């Protein structure tokens, strides 16, 4: 037993309240995201072979190395421990064809981390999604390597044929020639495309995991995919099969579940999230319907990323109990 007097001779810790904290840390959140990406990673290996894993390993390693070196040069603390570089690396790989040369994949990782993330202050400060921006830069720089798609295995037990390249379903729809895979194949991912975007099943499992673990709110994925569904249903004149191809093809699920929900580049408030999701959906559809490029998810997310500060400003909730009349009066005053 220690008496109060004896204890007083030692210095006590003083800090601002609260004196307890939740167990959740940034690292745990990022770890959850990594876990949620694993089903899609496994699916990509099954669909496109071990090269999918190799590409992912290269981008993850490149991201981690870039993060370490760039922060060292900028004399900032080492932030590898928050695992966000691994998440960026995985997401970038998921947005690349499995046949991409390794050096391009590595370059993409460096662009994502150094230019998009660290130049703007590191985690939480980047205003566009690093993985998507890197993908777009690669796409514009090396368009042929970035748009030749290895054909997936024909059935899970057959070996993938690396040499042959085929078209993605969206390109088929856009050009109106070639044959589409069946909807079942689309759902389990047996189609041409970026290595992580094809298996809808795995992406949905990962998304549900994130929602159950409360890492993301379903607001953005649902409003994003919902908007695409509504617009496409109108555009395709109520053809549900065509609609299903639109939902399952391209990077829509990957983008809506994992990229548009990126904390740094999406609004915080619920209303803001809905506006953001709808905006992404509208731009995706405009590009898919009217654009010369068959895929619009990356561009839609990056455009909405840039609008986030404005969405935030418009959707900042009023403090508890602010009278409704005052709200209206303020809005009128603004207008």
């Amino acid at each position, binding site marked *: 037993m220690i008496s*109060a007097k004896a*204890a007083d001779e030692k210095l*006590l*810790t003083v800090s601002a*309240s609260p*004196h*307890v904290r939740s167990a959740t840390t940034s690292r745990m959140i990022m770890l959850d995201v990594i876990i949620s990406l694993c089903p899609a990673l496994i699916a990509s290996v099954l669909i496109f072979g071990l090269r999918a894993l190799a590409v992912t390993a290269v981008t993850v390693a490149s991201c981690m190395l870039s993060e370490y070196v760039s922060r060292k040069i900028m004399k900032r603390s080492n*932030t590898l421990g928050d695992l966000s570089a691994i998440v960026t690396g995985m997401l970038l790989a998921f947005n690349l064809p499995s046949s991409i040369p390794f050096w391009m994949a590595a370059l993409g990782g460096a662009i994502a981390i150094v230019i998009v993330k660290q130049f703007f202050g590191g985690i939480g400060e980047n205003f566009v999604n690093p993985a998507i921006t890197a993908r777009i830069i690669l796409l514009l720089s090396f368009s042929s390597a970035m748009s030749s798609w290895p054909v997936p295995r024909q059935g899970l037990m057959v070996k993938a044929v690396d040499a042959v390249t085929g078209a993605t379903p969206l390109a088929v729809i856009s050009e109106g020639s070639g044959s589409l895979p069946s909807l079942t194949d689309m759902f389990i991912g047996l189609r041409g495309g970026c290595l992580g975007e094809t298996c809808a099943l795995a992406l949905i499992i990962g998304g549900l995991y994130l929602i159950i673990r409360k890492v993301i709110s379903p607001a953005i994925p649902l409003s994003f995919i919902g908007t695409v569904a509504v617009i496409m249903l109108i555009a395709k004149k109520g053809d549900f099969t065509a609609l299903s191809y639109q939902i399952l093809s391209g990077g829509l699920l990957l983008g809506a579940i994992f990229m548009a929900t990126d904390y740094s580049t999406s609004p915080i408030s619920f209303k803001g999230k809905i506006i953001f999701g709808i905006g992404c959906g509208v731009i995706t559809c405009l590009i898919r319907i009217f654009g010369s490029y068959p895929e619009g998810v990356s561009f839609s997310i990056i455009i909405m990323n840039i609008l986030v500060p404005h969405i935030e400003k418009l959707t900042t909730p009023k403090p508890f109990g*602010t009278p409704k009349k005052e709200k209206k009066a303020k809005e009128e005053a603004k207008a």
Partner: protein
Amino acid sequence: MASEKNKVIKAVKQVKGGVIVNHHKTTANCEVVRIPTPQTVMLPMQQHIGAPCTPTVQVGDHVDIGQVVGDSDKFVSAPIHASVSGTVKSIQNIKLPTGNMTQAVTIESDGENRYWEGIKRPDIRSKEDFIKAVRASGLVGLGGAGFPSFIKLSFKEEQHIDTLVVNAAECEPYITVDYRECLDNSWDIVSSIDILCSLFEFKNVIIAVEDNKPDVFGVLRDVASAHDINHSNVKLMTLKSKYPQGAEKMIVQSATGRKVPPGKLPADVGCVVMNVGSVAFLSRYLKTGKPLVSRSLTIDGSAIANPMNVRAPIGTNIGELIDFCGGFKEEPCKIILGGPMMGHAIVSTNHPTCKQNNAILAFAKDDTILKPERDCIRCGRCAQVCPINLMPTLITRYTKAKDVAALKAAGVNVCMECGSCSFACPAGKPLVQHMRLAKAMVKEADAK
């Protein structure tokens, strides 16, 4: 309350946000133990929100229990009474745990515990008599804030007060004194409500308790029926155990569905909120005339040898209280006055307890390590848990940019510093500290 059909009702409206905290109500089964009279007590002149009192005694004066030792002529204040009988030893300036300086009267006990001869049962004939008596009792909100109780009750006719909310939510972890008050002094609570109802004609009285203390309802109902008190307008309400359910604005919303606007008080939406301990005290005071000279405190935490609930004279040294509970079983690293969410860390146990202190918590080193501060990942958890819809992450940015206009627009002054944002932050940001900085910044700018 007595009628059989009067069941426990559910909250009218669920409070948004908030966090789930570990309750740690380890002292729930500890009946309140009265400590032996301390050798000396120190009575700070600021034990309430409002103007500090000035000492009305001089060094060398003899005082008895219940004699006024400090009072103020300002409206927002409450008198302070001697909590032991003895001699005034000194009047000196001390630093409160909040960092503010105040005068404090130290009384050396003569061990006789004699009550002051001037103590008599208050003669209540009207509302005004009652409010005067409540002021004279020195009662302040015993839940932690310490707002003088008589002010809450001196509302005007045109405010149309129709609801009394008896706050027994006790949402802060560890603290169990309100729970013990409900179980052990249930008759005081019930009879107080009876008196308050007959004086103020409340249309509704809601006794609100978090759902982790369901036994409270049975006890209160039994007591009410045994004493044949039957107010059909008294309701027992169970609230979801969620911090900060017991905050005034939150409990008003839960109990009535009304929202207290920014910068307003519960009275502005027709409610009076009183802590259950304050309510129970009123009945004892009206019977005996003994002012607020002692109170119950929970003494707990991983460093305390025998956690328990104690009743101690106001102004008892914290160190003495801890020694009464067997001292420390482990070396204490942090000692908190109040609950872990909103309490103040103190620098030494050589401090007096005040009227509004409801707990002393001492923690060993392992329980005081907070997660290291990292960069904000903009996850938005702080905004999600904020019960009053603020965006702490944005406010932190404005604070760093010293943007007072943006801070005001963001509603930083509405923040009640409940601590939910800091609790939830995965990056370990001291958000409440930023909020306080921001408030100080706004205050300073307004003063210019």
